[in-house]
């Protein structure tokens, strides 16, 4: 370590000490719980906001599943929640599209990006690298409040008279640009774009902070190859976000221009509602390129943190080092790199140059290689372990299952020739819900159960955790596995009902089953919500380091203090995966424990 760096560290430590000693003054409610700079509180803010959004999005999915399972049947509950959009309890086609759109938007951006990265990057980065807080607490605070504002605007858009955005979560123009085409493209869409812009600001502020923190604030001894895989995942995720979200911002900005200021970036040759529009020269395909240039890395922005959390949880609970630590880092990097050159596989049938299609097929299928490496490494980590099936471990192993199941169908969708016939069918819905939706949410649940003691100093109820997991994985597969068959039968996604096609009549019982499992799955999340809030207040007090884990966050006292550690931050002497190392006293060796004389560092 160079002299300058050492100085930097000493300086930072002193800074932390100061804060700690200053800490005795009373913090006001506002500075402690609302406009807080503290990474632990901000992480809780992200988590609870995302949970509220998640409940909204989940309710929406049960609403449209009611319509899809029993098309045209009256459900009074729909009228209760949706009022004029479900007259007599029957969902209207416009509202169906709005629900599908907002469900997707909330889940992808607010729950699995804001919620997942926001919660765990904030909680774990300072704790696991041995820092007092984020590099910039103020930026971190802004990141949360922009996120909150963006959630707020998105929720407001649900109450607009002409309805919320309903052009699908990908908001392809011209549909999203022309209120004549669909009522949701009026004020609802404007608010959607405002909300997303705020979200992008939040994401960028957060991501820059994460990157700077990981790069600069690691404690002495915490080299990049001693970082827990969680931190690697968060770091790479943040880099992906910084590189790709601005492109979405550009795309959204141009769409705002087209909608409000008469430009023609995406619009051309349109005749609608009895009028030929003035727009010429634009291309709707341009939007798709810009959107998916973000959209595909976004998939990994969602997935990588989940994989990182899973690596940590699996290794800890299998009481074994994660297998192939460096290969895991390598595959994260390769996946991240590839994620920028595969976006075209969302656009195989837009009439793109066939040669380009071949290139995207090639790059897309390559993603399977690092993904396979990750799966095999997880399996090998389980092999000859001593596995503690905590609720977190169950969700982590569940992720391995969904990651395999959903990842494999990606080989079909990524193949341009095969994509032609399954593009935009339920096969796609099945694929991305399993590989990205379920896997990411499983990773998130694993994280919540595992680090709940770190967040609240209490344990979540394990029995409810078990029930929650088994009910969830059964409903995930009950909902999404049959959808593959719907897709192979040619059922397009985003259809309000399949009743207009006698062709699809025989598939109705599949839809009934899917909807039933969806409702079951939603109820199962009630168990989690109850457990979460009950445990915050009534859960049994956690012991120090309840999972006997190696990473630094467990060396800090369970009580949350400003600056995390009361004294000096423990130095790091080893990698985080010395579980079950022969010759050691216990089956775990915290990173802060110095090497024994003659001990060999293995990895």
């Amino acid at each position, binding site marked *: 370590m160079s002299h300058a760096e050492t100085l930097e560290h000493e300086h930072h430590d002193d800074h932390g000490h100061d804060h700690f000693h200053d800490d005795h003054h009373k913090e006001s409610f506002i500075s402690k719980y609302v406009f807080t700079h503290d990474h632990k509180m901000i992480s809780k803010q992200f988590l609870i906001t995302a949970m509220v959004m998640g409940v909204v999005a989940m309710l929406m999915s049960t609403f449209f599943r009611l319509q899809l399972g029993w098309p045209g049947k009256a459900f009074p509950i729909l009228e209760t929640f949706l009022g004029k959009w479900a007259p007599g309890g029957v969902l209207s086609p416009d509202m169906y599209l709005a629900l599908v759109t907002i469900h997707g938007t909330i889940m992808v951006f607010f729950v699995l990006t804001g919620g997942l990265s926001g919660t765990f990057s904030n909680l774990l980065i300072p704790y696991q690298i041995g820092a007092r807080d984020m590099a910039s607490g103020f930026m971190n605070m802004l990141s949360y409040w922009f996120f909150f504002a963006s959630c707020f605007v998105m929720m407001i858009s649900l109450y607009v008279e002409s309805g919320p955005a309903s052009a699908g979560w990908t908001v392809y123009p011209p*549909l999203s640009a022309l209120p004549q085409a669909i009522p949701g493209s009026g004020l609802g869409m404007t608010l959607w774009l405002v909300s997303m812009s705020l979200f992008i600001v939040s994401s960028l502020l957060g991501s820059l902070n994460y990157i700077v923190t990981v790069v600069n604030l690691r404690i002495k001894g915490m080299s990049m190859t001693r970082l827990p895989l969680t931190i690697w995942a968060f770091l790479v995720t943040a880099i992906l976000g910084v590189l790709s979200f601005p492109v979405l911002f550009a795309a959204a900005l141009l769409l705002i221009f087209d909608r409000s200021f008469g430009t023609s970036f995406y*619009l051309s040759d349109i005749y609608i509602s009895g009028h030929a529009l003035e727009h010429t020269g634009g291309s709707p395909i341009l939007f798709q390129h810009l959107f998916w240039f973000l959209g595909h890395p976004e998939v990994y922005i969602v997935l990588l943190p989940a994989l990182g959390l899973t690596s940590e949880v699996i290794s800890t609970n299998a009481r*074994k080092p994660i297998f192939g630590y460096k290969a895991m880092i390598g595959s994260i990097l390769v996946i991240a790199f590839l994620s920028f050159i595969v976006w075209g596989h969302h656009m195989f049938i*837009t009439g793109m140059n066939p040669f380009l299609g071949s290139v995207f097929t090639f790059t897309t299928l*390559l993603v399977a290689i690092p993904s396979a490496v990750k799966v095999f490494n997880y399996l090998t980590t389980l092999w000859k372990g001593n596995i503690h*099936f905590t609720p977190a471990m169950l969700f982590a192993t569940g992720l391995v299952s969904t990651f395999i199941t959903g990842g494999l169908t990606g080989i079909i969708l990524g193949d341009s020739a095969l994509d032609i016939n399954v593009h935009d069918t339920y096969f796609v819905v099945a694929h991305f819900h399993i590989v990205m939706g379920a896997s990411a949410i499983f990773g998130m649940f694993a994280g919540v159960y595992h680090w709940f003691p770190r967040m609240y100093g209490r344990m979540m109820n394990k029995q409810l955790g078990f029930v929650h997991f088994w009910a969830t994985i059964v409903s995930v597969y009950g909902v999404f596995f049959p959808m593959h068959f719907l897709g192979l039968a040619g059922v397009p996604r985003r259809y309000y009902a399949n009743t207009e096609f006698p062709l699809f009549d025989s598939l109705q019982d599949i839809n009934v089953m899917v909807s039933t499992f969806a409702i079951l799955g939603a109820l199962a999340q009630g168990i989690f919500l109850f457990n979460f809030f009950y445990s915050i207040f009534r859960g049994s007090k956690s012991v120090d380091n309840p999972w006997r884990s190696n990473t630094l966050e467990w060396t800090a006292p369970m009580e949350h203090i400003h600056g995390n550690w009361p004294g000096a931050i423990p130095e790091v002497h080893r990698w985080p995966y010395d579980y079950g190392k022969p010759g050691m006293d216990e089956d775990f060796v915290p990173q802060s424990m110095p090497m024994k004389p003659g001990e060999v560092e293995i990895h």
Partner: protein
Amino acid sequence: MNWLLILTIILGVAALSRLLKVMELSAILRGEDVNAMKDSDSKNNALIWVLFGGAFFYFFYWQVKNYADKLLPISASEHGVETDNLFMVTLVLITVVFFITHVFLFYFAYKYFVKKGQKTEFFAHSTKLELVWTVVPTIVLTSLIVYGIQTWNTITTPAPEDTPVIELYAKQFDWTARYAGKDNKLGNSSFRLIEGSNDLGIDVNDPHAADDKIVRGEFHIPVGKPVNFVFHSRDIIHSAYMPHFRAQMNCVPGMTTRFHFVPTITTAEMKEKTKNENFDYLLLCNKICGASHYNMQIKIVVDTPEEYEKWLNDKKTFAEQNAPKVEEAPKLDSLVMGLDSTLNKTDSLATASVTKK
């Protein structure tokens, strides 16, 4: 109803709270922490993993057994057969990987749950193993990529010059087909020319437009002959999805997109093959396009070449449709009909001999 719902939620939460309280108290009586992990928890969950695994595999099998005959029937197009082969190869491959990896997952979960005195293997790294499972997937995927791209190239090779052109014109929420006519050239069209009954905006002054034939409600294509579809949209993006032919292409305003294929099974034959009298080929809209997206369809009929010629000849050309005087004289029209069919026959023979040369 709503009160009932709220009441259920409140009672549910209350009941769960009581349940947890009872569990906590009984744990305290036993001198334990209710949430501390016990080895028996891991054992139980490991057993459930195995049960789940069995149920999962059975569910897979059950679905394949019950849903196999509900899937799309055999491909009705030439390239579709190749697509289906590629699909089957890929599907078999991923199913095998799916089963193998899941068997490992369930087996390891069951075999290695925590036990007193169970020794773990400190196994952090093995270049050999890692090399194996990097190289093997690479080889397998490389062959899939090559196979896939070859198939894609066959499908996307531009259609031969003389392939009959059919325009599929999309708008909220219906489809119109336009046949290029004798000259096999579509007349120019523009969204600015849309007016009254000319809802495709065809340029009346373009000589190529005169023999174009506009068809609504259903359109026909001949079996065994290539057809070259050209797609347009007048308002927003739609997608022309013809699942039985393994064909799909987006219709983008301001752009022309194409897809060509050779239908191989007539509608009549497919009715027999599927043992379904009501079977029809369909074109569905498969890109979200508004409230009636779920009902934007048009019927496709695959005819024998003779039936097709007859059907097409019965349709009026754009010029005929645009000449209102002809339409106002129904008597003359019906008189000509009889003659027409004989005329058409010689006509089609003439075309056939021309193409042979």
